C-alpha cells in the first residue's frame, strides 16, 4: 500500500474526501477506492492517451466557412507514482477542426517506463480518438478583471477513447473518458491561454485475461501560447492528476499546428 493510502487512512471516517477540488488536485490524492487497489505496474488510465499525454485547451475559434486540418505532437511524463518507474510518453496526432469549433483527432504514440530493468517489456504503443466540442465561446468573463477586452472564454465538452496493447503481461488497456474543459485566452497578437480540464475516465476490460473495470476522476490544467509566430501554431504546457491511488502527477508539452488556407 502506498504512503498516500496510509495518509488517507489516517483521516477520520467521513472526512476522507478533501474539502476542495483544488486541494485534491495539488495535494497528494486523498480519494481512496476501497475495493480497488492499483497493484498493476501500470494502470489503464496511465497507459492510454488520456493519462499518458498532457492535457490541452479547447481549440481556438476559427472561421465558420472553413474546416481545417492540423497536426499535433505531445510529450508527457508521469512522476511520483506508486509503480516502480516513471512513465514517459510521446504521441503524434492529426486533428480536424470542423467549421471553426469542434475538433476531432486521432493519436498514436509510445509510452516507456524509465529506468526499466526488463530487457523485453519496457514500453507499449498507445492509440486514441477524441472529440472536443466548443459549446459556448464568448467574451472576456474573468479576463475582464484585468481589462483585456480581446479575451475569449470557451466552455466545452469532450469524449475520448483510448487503447494501449500489452501494458503489462497479457493485459491491454481500454479507456473511455469525458470532460468539461474551460479555457480563457487573452491578448491581441500572441494569445496566452489558461485552461482547466476536469473529467472522468472509465477503464474497460479489453484483454483476454480478466482485468478490473473502474472509474476515476481526473483534472488537468495548464497554460499555453496560441499563434506563436505563425497563425496556426500553438504551444501548450499541461499537468494532470488522476484522483485515484498514487498515480502521480503527469506534465508535458503539446505543440499543435493548424493549416490555414
Amino acid at each position, binding site marked *: 500500500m502506498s504512503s498516500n493510502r496510509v495518509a488517507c487512512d489516517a483521516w477520520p471516517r467521513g472526512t476522507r474526501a478533501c474539502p476542495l477540488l483544488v486541494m485534491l488536485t495539488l495535494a497528494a490524492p486523498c480519494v481512496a477506492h476501497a475495493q480497488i487497489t492499483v497493484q498493476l505496474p501500470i494502470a489503464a488510465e496511465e497507459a492510454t492517451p488520456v493519462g499518458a499525454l498532457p492535457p490541452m485547451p479547447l481549440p481556438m475559434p476559427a472561421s465558420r466557412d472553413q474546416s481545417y486540418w492540423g497536426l499535433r505532437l505531445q510529450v508527457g511524463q508521469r512522476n511520483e507514482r506508486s509503480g516502480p518507474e516513471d512513465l514517459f510518453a510521446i504521441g503524434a496526432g492529426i486533428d480536424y477542426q470542423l467549421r471553426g469549433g469542434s475538433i476531432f483527432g486521432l493519436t498514436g504514440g509510445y509510452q516507456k517506463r524509465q529506468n526499466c530493468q526488463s530487457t523485453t517489456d519496457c514500453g507499449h504503443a498507445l492509440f486514441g480518438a477524441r472529440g472536443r466540442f466548443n459549446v459556448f465561446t464568448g467574451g472576456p468573463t474573468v479576463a475582464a478583471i484585468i481589462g483585456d*477586452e*480581446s479575451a475569449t472564454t470557451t466552455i466545452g465538452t469532450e469524449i475520448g477513447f483510448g487503447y494501449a496493447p500489452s501494458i503489462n503481461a497479457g493485459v491491454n488497456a481500454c479507456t473511455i473518458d469525458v470532460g468539461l474543459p474551460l479555457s480563457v485566452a487573452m491578448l491581441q497578437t500572441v494569445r*496566452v491561454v489558461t485552461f482547466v480540464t476536469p473529467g472522468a475516465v472509465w477503464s474497460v476490460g479489453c484483454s483476454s485475461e480478466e482485468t478490473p473495470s473502474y472509474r476515476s476522476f481526473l483534472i488537468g490544467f495548464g497554460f499555453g501560447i496560441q499563434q*506563436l509566430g505563425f497563425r496556426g501554431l500553438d504551444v501548450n504546457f499541461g499537468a494532470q492528476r488522476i484522483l485515484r491511488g498514487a498515480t502521480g502527477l503527469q506534465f508535458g508539452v503539446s505543440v499543435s499546428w493548424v493549416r490555414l488556407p
Partner: protein
Amino acid sequence: MIWLAIRKNIAFRRARLVARGGFAVVAIASAVGCQHHVKLEEPPGDQIETTLFLIGDAGEPDPRQVGAPLDSLTALASVAPERTIIVFLGDNVYPGGIPAEGAAEWADARRRLEEQIRAIPPGVRGIFVPGNHDWANETAFGLYSIRLQERMIAALAQGKNVRLIPGNGCPGPVSVDVGRLRLVALDTQWWLHSFIVRDSSSHCAASTMATVTAALRSEVRAPGEGRVVLVAAHHPLMTGGAHGGYCGVSGPYRRFGGASQDILSSGNRTMRDSIRSAFKSNPPLAYVAGHDHTLQVLRGGPNVKYIIVSGAGSAGKTECAVRMRESYYVTQHRAGFMRVDIMKGKGVLLRVYRYPGTKHGALAYTRWLEPR
C-alpha cells in the same frame, strides 16, 4: 494599492517561473504581450487621395447623448471633405426601418436617419447601404420600407451628396469610382429576405441570384492599373460575433443554422458562396460589412484579402466578438468606426477608432491593407 500588490505578485510569480527555467518561453511571450505597443500610422494628409469612413449599424443614436461615434466621425471627416466618403453599412434605422407615414413610429424612424445624415459634414459624400432592419426588420413590408428610406434620405440630404445604394430594393451591385477607388455596393438582405423582393416598379438591372453574381463578377474587375476594389454590404462573409455562432447562450442554436441572418444558415451560406465565387478570378482588396456590433479586421482567404466588420456605430448596441485564427484585430463592447485612406499612387491604410478610447486616444489599430 490592490492593483500594485497584484502587479507585484504577478511579477514575482513570473520571475519564479523564469528562475525555474522550464517555462521561459511562456514568460517571454507574456512579457511581449503585456508590453505590446501597436505602431499607429499617421500618414501626411497631402499623400491621401480618397478617405473612406466605414460605420455600420448606426441606426440607434441616443437622443439624450452627444458624442461618439457619430460626432467623432463628423470631426474627422470635416478635415478634408472634398476627398472624403462616409459609408453607412446598413441597419440605418432600428428596429424596423421606415414605417408608412402616419404610423406611430414614423417620427422616431426619421429622427434616427436624420442624426446620421447630420453627421455628414458639408462637402462629404454620404452612402447608405441597406441592412436587414431597414427591410422592416425582415417582414413583408421590407421592400416598401427600403424605398421609403431611399426617399427620406433624399429629402433629408438638403443639398448634400447623400444617397442609398443599391436603391429601389434592388440587390445591386452598384459601383462608385473615385480615383483609384472602386466601391461596389450590395444589398445582401435582398438575398435573405423571405417576403416580396421585387414588383412591377423594381426595374433592377440584375434580379436573380445568378445575374447578381455575374454582375458582381464583372464589377470587381475594375479597369485600369492600381485600382483598389472594396465591396460594401451589410452582412459579413465571416465574423467572430454573435451572428457567427459565437457569444452567448444562443451560440449553439445559431451554429446549427437557426436564422437566415446567421453565418451558418443555409440561405446565408448560399449568399456568401455566391459572393465569394464572384470574387474568385479578381479578388477585391476588402469586403466591408456591419451586422455584428463589433469592430473586426479579418484575413479573408483566397477570394478576398481582408474582411472588415465595422458594425459598432451605435454605442448602446455594442456586443461581444471572439478572436479567431483569421483575426488581425478584434474589439468588443466598444462603439466605433473604421477609416480607409487610399494613398496617391500606392498604399491603402486602415485605421480603427473605438470609443471610449484609451489614454492614448481613440485610434486603436492601423494596418496597411495595400503596402506603400
